[in-house]
């Protein structure tokens, strides 16, 4: 759905409840645009962060999900630091990624698989192994052209010695227990989450 199309209120979208926790995070927004002005990735985004928060507040889930703005958030926390209302914007960006991945949004399939395979490698080894991670990613993508898209970048990184080709020099430290605990925490409500000492 195009954000430029008519917004009808009260919200007609049936599925917008999943946005409610994020709406609550940003409902005190005054649309001043500080987030957009301070975002280093704003130029790459299809919607400015301010527009996206506006859509969130208006409950337009499908328009938000169509955007790649939240995917492009690099968690630099500048907007959170500058927001005059002190809103947890970076946290809200992450929550939007969570919704998009949980909904298995086709548009964000590549990003979702990238995240998933990255974390899978970390879980297995306690660290990233570039070759294994990329192989898993390419398999999951089921796209024969994907490796070629990454080839120039891969070669560049290899040239600088940034890609570890063989097995790890250090021993593996699987993080299965840690991941399970986190998954456990994520199933519990946010209030408990905070009590455990997380932000």
């Amino acid at each position: 759905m195009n954000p430029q199309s008519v917004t009808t209120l009260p919200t007609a979208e049936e599925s917008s409840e999943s946005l409610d926790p994020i709406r609550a995070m940003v409902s005190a927004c005054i649309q001043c645009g500080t987030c957009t002005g301070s975002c280093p990735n704003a130029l790459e985004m299809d919607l400015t962060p301010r527009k996206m928060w506006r859509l969130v507040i208006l409950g337009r889930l499908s328009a938000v999900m169509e955007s790649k703005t939240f995917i492009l958030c690099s968690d630099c926390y500048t907007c959170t630091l500058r927001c005059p209302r002190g809103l947890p914007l970076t946290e809200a960006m992450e929550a939007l990624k969570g919704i998009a991945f949980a909904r298995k949004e086709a548009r964000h399939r590549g990003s979702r698989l990238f995240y998933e395979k990255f974390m899978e490698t970390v879980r297995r080894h306690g660290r990233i192994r570039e070759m294994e991670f990329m192989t898993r990613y390419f398999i999951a993508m089921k796209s024969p052209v994907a490796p070629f898209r990454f080839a120039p970048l891969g070669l560049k990184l290899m040239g600088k010695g940034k890609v570890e080709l063989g097995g790890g020099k250090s021993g593996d430290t699987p993080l299965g227990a840690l991941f399970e605990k986190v998954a456990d925490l994520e199933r519990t409500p946010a209030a408990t989450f905070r009590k455990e000492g997380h932000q």
Partner: protein
Amino acid sequence: MDQKIGSALVVGAGISGIRASIDLAQMGYRVTLADRAPHMGGILSQLDYQFPTDRCGMCRMLPMVEGEPDKFQVTLKQAPSPVDPDCCIGCGQCSEVCPVEVPDAFNAGLTHRKAVYLPVPHNIPNTYTIDQAACTRCGACEPVCPTGAIRLSAMGRRAFRILVVDDESIVRNSLDAWLGDEEGYTVEMAASGPEALEKLSAAPFHLMLLDIKMPGMDGVEVLEKARVIQPALQVVMMTAYATVETAVDAMKIGAMDYLVKPFEPDALIPKVAAVYDAFQETGYLKRTVGAIVLATGTTCFDPSVGKNPMGYGTVPNVVTSLEFERMLSGTGPDAGRLCRPSDKRPVKRAAWIQCVGSRDLQSGADFCSTICCMFALKEAAVARTVAGDDFQATIIYMDMRTFGKSFERYGQQTWSTDGVRLERGRVHSIAPTPGSEDVAIRWTSASGETREEIFDLVVLSVGQRANDQTALLAEELGIDTDGFGFVRTVPFSDTRTQRVGVFAGGTLTGPTDIAESVIRASSAAVNASRTIHRAGGGLVEKTAVPDAYRDVSREPPRILVVLCRCETSAETDSDLDALSARLKQDPAVTQVVVLEHICTADGWNALTQTDTAGVNRVLVGACRTFTYGKKAHGLAASFGLDPSLIESVAMDDRQGPDAPATVAAIMAGISRLKNVSAIEENSIAVTNRALVVGGGIAGMSAALAIADHGVDVTLVEESEQLGGNLTWLHQTIDGAPIAPFLDDTIGQVDKHPGILVMTDSRVVGAFGQAGHFFSTIETAGEPTTTVEHGAVILATGGREAPTDAYAHGTSEAVVTQRELETRIHENRLDTDAMKSVVMIQCVGSREAPRNYCSRVCCPTALKQALWLKSRSPELQIYILYRDMMTCGLAEAWYTEARKQGILFFQYRPDRKPEVSINTGDKVPVSVRLHDPILDAPVEIAADLLVLATGIESRLPEALALAYGAERDQDGFFQEADSKWRPVEALKAGVFGCGIALSPRSIPEAVATAEAAAGRALTILAVERLPAARTTAIVRHSLCTLCLRCVDTCPYGARFLDDAGQRVQVNPAMCQGCGDCATACPNSASIVEGFSHRSMFGAIEGALVAM
């Protein structure tokens, strides 16, 4: 009337403190005004320009605690002034020799000053003061002062005298070094007991450090004898370890403490400091006062604290709004030329960034500082006049809050000029521009594109912050502060704290602008006065002490000329002799006397004791400060001459007495004196009754405040019951129910023996002047009555403006805010049956027909929305606004509303929402609007549409004119001056309050009512109203009754008498401006003391000398 004099303490000498003090003093109280700073004026002394006039106008306003109300014991720590203000002649020689340079806080740190300095460079008279924190006490200034005004050596620690008694010279010397050279006390030494006693007999000491084991007389014996000579002397014994017991014994006979030798400075110095502190406290001022008015104000937010995203102090050419104000000023760093700090290049492009430290939770401010929008607009307007028309101002803001009286028009006028641009947006941070001293800033415009621009200068509109001293003061007084540090008040009042007898004026109870500060100050003053009055201390009748002035009206002028001189030299002597001889050629000059240093106490004594038996006029020629000072008035009493017969002229102390300018001034003075005569003291009788028109909350509050002072009040109300708008209001935004407050107020009015309530009544005609008005009042079904009164307060209020916009009147589903309030009040609103409510703000406001902000509508919309949300959390509420005017602490409600899920849409006046009414089963109202953030249309299906139509005045023009007052272009009461005299008309004795002045909330209306009552009491509390010394008179023999003077008088002080035969002047209303004298074609109108002969004589005298 009670004749006891009450007294009050006012803390803080900013604009509010001064206003409150003047009000209380005019009511007859003894007022103590205290401030931390060495000068009065607060922040306003730093602001040269105030809108809407873009000039200063403060002059327009001028004509530690325990106990119960009426008995506050206050202790004021008074720092002794190191410069005697009576002696300082402002010559500046001290400043020239001072070696210390510090940033000048007056110019917001943009310039430097010496440790001895003029706190406000443009004060008159102006005396130097010493910055005790910066001063090194080098003493260089003291010997150069020509009048001995600096008494640094008798100040502070130097005044604290310590006597060290020890037979060992090494102990004496090291104590001298520690206490004298390092700590700055005055230290004297004695090597033996007898020598010590000799010194004690010769001069007073405050502390003695006394050795026990000394040859001859031992320490204990010295102590016994010393206590006979100086019983108050504090003694610390110094003892070796072996004689500690002796030291303990010594304490039994009066020693304060002991030290075991050998000791380090760390052990000694705190003990000495403790004695010194106790000594200092004896100098504190103790007062018993009946009430306390706090007006300690706020400070500006310091943008360099915390994260400092704006790079203040690190990025060049980023200044605060206060610094910019100083940069514009003639007394500022560049003498009024607008240059940027880093390279002094003229500023041509400047940007203002709003809300720095306001509406910002990151810096702990969930409030709006209220003043910054207008401050920035004014600075932009003034900067264009200072820097030229090619000056480009850009104001980057979130909401433009032009909510006060006349603010919207001033704003429109400012931003409609080509050089001023408004940009809705917010700058996130400022970083230095490498290789340039320009400032580059980036923000996202309303349409969503990112803008990057380069400016010569960026001004941070810094917000207001509670003073850090407020918390201490509040704790000391037992009053509460809110989370932001502002003083909390009781409901429905902006000035009453929870503690009876303690009141707060100005910005202490929340950020506000000058006019509201002045109103709150007057309100606090009148409430303080009520407390004192209730406890038995009354207003005092000002009895004009009949000074025993000699009647010299029939004598020919015999003038005594007194000339002052600063230095004695052969050259000056001969110059003065020549001048004296020249003056004596005039037969009117009987005697010429030369005195030395009139500015010193000795010189002043010599002047007052000068024999004036043979003369009847006195001319004093002295330094500039003398002529400006209040001293000239004091001479009248000692000479037994009317003050108008004593004249002082300025002699320039940098030039010799024979300088042409000096001679001209003296000759002009002599010629003027020849033709003046004593002015008769005028006064008019006052009718001690007030008339209050309008029985709403403002009228009732004003009536109660006046009646509580024992002055009778007639309260006229048009409708059949008191209460006005409060009768249909349900509750306030913070949930306080209005009905109990209204019932209580009506109850007090009804029960008050001093208030006569006339309902169903209207004022149909009036005439008269301050002190004595006649009003004709028509009551339904009763004969017309006439009331005589000394002052009138117009509290006619306002009403919600009617509208037919947005389909109002065609559907039950479209209502105004008042209609919604009534439906809620009468339980006629079924919130469960509704799914969505839309509110549209600024319907017919801030544009024709009501081109002003009605101030209360935004908070009202929030109030209703929050109430609806609390009733029915599922209800969707949409508020369509232009700029949310939630000024001051109301901002927190705006935050709360958004948190509750209420949605806000901004709209522009050229793109208003569209409304259509649906029929049948459809949701009754459709609202279409354009969301500027998404740049996309929004369509809302609403069960209810609520319109905020604003407030219109109910002040009939005929009523205002009957009392000689005027209405402004919007129909509200025209005040004498929007900032300095906000509740009174230009015509004396006529006041306005409440919504009659301009739209306002209940506490604000009450504050104006109390302020108006206080101002009215300055007339009503006296039996005779003294006139100004300089007033106009009419020479009836020359008057042709052309009435030009009556038309021209700006104060309405002139009128034709009952018979229509003579033009009369009301001396209490005449301000002596002289407009009538210039308008009169026949010289029949003259200002007393300024007769043609006297004025032409002065000019002639000056010309003769040249």
